[in-house]
């Protein structure tokens, strides 16, 4: 590591510590960072943790991965072509978004269509004002076209999927800024 890297890393750690982060992973290109803070030596907590882990003092534990099936939290290869995180953990996936937005999720498994028929204009586009109950899109399942209604009123600010794309249950479709 260059001294510059080290400095940045130190700053990052300081910042994480200030914000009481317990674990932190980052991967970007060939950069991988993994940080896990040790248990705070708060009296009772340390005692309980010790009892729970019965860790061996003689054998310092290596920097460990958080959990066996960390990978399992996101399905191995989602049919949806959106970022797996968005599909696999919709709530978390939207955390980066404005919390005031309302997310319309797919109530069924099927194929998403933005318009009533090929070539026809989309039911809604970004920037449209929509009403409660207004049709936002169609999800085709078993040859049936299911019209998906909006469950909020406001402005469509984002569409998460492409027309023709398969979606699973609970997958975010639109973000609406409620009025």
């Amino acid at each position: 590591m260059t001294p510059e890297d080290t400095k940045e890393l130190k700053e990052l750690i300081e910042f994480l510590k200030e914000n009481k982060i317990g674990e932190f992973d980052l991967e970007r290109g060939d950069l991988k960072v993994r940080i896990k803070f040790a248990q705070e030596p708060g009296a009772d907590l340390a005692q309980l943790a010790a009892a729970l882990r019965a860790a061996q003092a003689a054998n310092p534990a290596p920097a460990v991965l958080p959990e066996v099936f960390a990978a399992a939290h996101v399905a191995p290869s989602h049919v949806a072509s959106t970022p797996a995180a968005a599909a696999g953990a919709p709530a978390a996936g939207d955390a980066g978004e404005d919390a005031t937005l309302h997310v319309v999720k797919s109530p069924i498994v099927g194929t998403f269509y933005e318009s009533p028929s090929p070539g026809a204009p989309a039911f809604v586009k970004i920037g449209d004002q929509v009403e409660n109950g207004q049709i936002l899109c169609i999800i085709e399942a078993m040859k049936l076209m299911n019209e998906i209604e909006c469950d909020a009123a406001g402005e469509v600010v984002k569409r998460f999927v492409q027309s023709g794309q398969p979606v699973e249950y609970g997958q975010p479709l639109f973000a609406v800024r409620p009025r």
Partner: protein
Amino acid sequence: MFRKVLIANRGEIALRVICACKEMGIRTVAVYSEADRHSLHVRFADEAICIGPPRSAESYLNVPAVISAAEIADVDAIHPGYGLLSENANFAEVCRASNIKFIGPPPDVTRLMGEKEKARQAMKRAKVPILPGSEGVIQTEDEGLEWAKSVGYPVILKASAGGGGRGMRVIRSAQELPALFQAAHMEAANAFGNGDLYMEKFIEQPRHIEFQVLADQHGTVMSIGERECSIQRRHQKLIEEAPSLQVTPKLREEIGKTLKKSLENVGYQNAGTVEFLMDEDGKLYFIEMNTRIQVEHPVTEMVTGLDLVKAQLRIACGEKLASIVPEQPPIRGHAIECRINAEHPEKFTPSAGKITAFNVPGGNGVRVDTAQYAEGVVPPYYDSLIAKLIVHGKDREEAMARMRRALEMFIVQGIHTTIPLHQKIFEDEDFIAGKFDTKFMERFFEKQKKDS
């Protein structure tokens, strides 16, 4: 062979099917409810699709959701596992209509076997022994004496109009028949306003014995040995074995031939299990047929060396049985399975929650089929089966000794399991001696109560 298969199930059987597919180079698609997001069948499938909220009715039993998932994932076939949609003929029909191969028998066969009385009659016509019952009402004591004589004592009188024990009498000899007939008649008349009675053969100590069959799509059926499943609690199997100590090679061959003929007649396809009761004299009576892979299929795999799930896939793909199981597999050694349920070992209350420690036993002759792991969660919505512990030994003694040591080494914490119950059963003298029937667990619990 199939290119891609969707597994319409969860838990250990979903993972079992995924393993078979992986070994055959078939891509797998898992479906899951929101409660199973972190399950191993989701983790190890090539693709995974969330099909609904935790409740089975809205996810795993939701036919449109499953079919829709199969369509968007573009699979060739669906393996239904056991339970859930596995014996749903309508689902099999929808699969067919959607051009997706349902891995199981055709819908009409599933439907036939699903209607118990029709299945009984079909099997009776095909000369499979069924539990004898009088045809219609027994009008008089004399008629009763005659019918009882024809099937042998004991018999049981039942009220045509009712149930719940009213008008019911077990008759163990001709001497006691007249008085009991009158008593039952009076009781039925009083209880249901109808004194009509019918009679059935009564088995004092029935054993539950079932035969595994495989059938290809070209008209060939093969019976591949039996399983002994008498250790049950409230009709839930706890322990299964293969072979049964009660089934001689001769009986096995006889039943095998009869089943081959009868199931070829009904046009059976894929894997199935024919369940029998066995009376004290070793005679078998057909009860019902399960038209799917069974929870306890591994004991048959252990003693025959077959892979039944792979056989299912190959059959469904059109392969002939002659190429999958070229000859009747010999039975080697003895296998036992314990179902490890997330239940309190004494009260049997379900014990959902987070598993904090999970150490599975290994070593020679031990197989564990499970989709659980340390840090895994047992959701409260589904079946309580979390693992199947299967052992194989050169004989029943070695298998039992192996099971004892494997149970001791199977450590699950955070939830209750039936492991301690199994440990006690494997110390029971009658169990060890092979002296049991479907009422074994009742007697076992009484003994336990007395001892404590």
